[in-house]
């Protein structure tokens, strides 16, 4: 798939921004998304190549504006919805409910 993940040779992205002593996870939610993705991989509904392709299918503009684990989250949500394990509608309903609780 000729999508935004395939960046080799593209200009205009700027220099790679090295972070000294970079933590493995910049925030707790990143750690959880990594763990959730690995755990769901163990569930056996998809293989690692399928999960990579799910991340690659993040729409180009969204992909380029996303951080690494935001892309992992996007991929995981796509796989959960496509396998019927957790639909987009269920995720949206839960997000709406959590936002309402937070106010």
């Amino acid at each position, binding site marked *: *798939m*000729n999508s935004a993940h*395939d960046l*080799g*040779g593209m200009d205009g992205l700027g220099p790679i921004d090295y972070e000294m002593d970079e933590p493995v996870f910049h925030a707790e939610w990143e750690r959880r998304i990594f763990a959730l993705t*690995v*755990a769901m991989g*163990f*569930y*056996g*509904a*998809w*293989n*690692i*190549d*399928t999960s*990579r*392709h799910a991340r*690659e299918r993040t729409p180009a503009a969204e992909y380029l504006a996303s951080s690494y684990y935001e892309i992992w989250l996007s991929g995981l949500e796509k796989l959960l919805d496509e396998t019927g394990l957790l639909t987009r509608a269920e995720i949206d309903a839960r997000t709406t409910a959590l936002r309402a609780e937070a106010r």
Partner: protein
Amino acid sequence: MPALKAKDALALLRKGGSARAKAEGPAKFAPGDRVAVRNMNPRGHTRAPRYIRCKTGTIDRDHGVFVFPDSHAHGKGSCPQHVYSVRFTARDVWGDDASSRDAIYIDLWDDYLTPV
């Protein structure tokens, strides 16, 4: 795919999951062979980057036999085949503006390559 049991998860996390396949298929190419990357633009998953398609390089080494991601990602089987480290000169990839001293090595599956 059956779900992994919790007791086996820790062992797998420590060991890592390898994509190496047990099947032994014939290698189409050998180190030293000149190869061209096919003109391919699959709508699905591939590990052949766009910038290397239609470029010519030299087989540097044979890594052995691995699962083929292009088929595996879409539930079409593991289609095990040889993966090579292929050397491309910078000028073969980017043209005359590139340094004459640089080269890039890319791991490419058998199905991506044609003989030159």
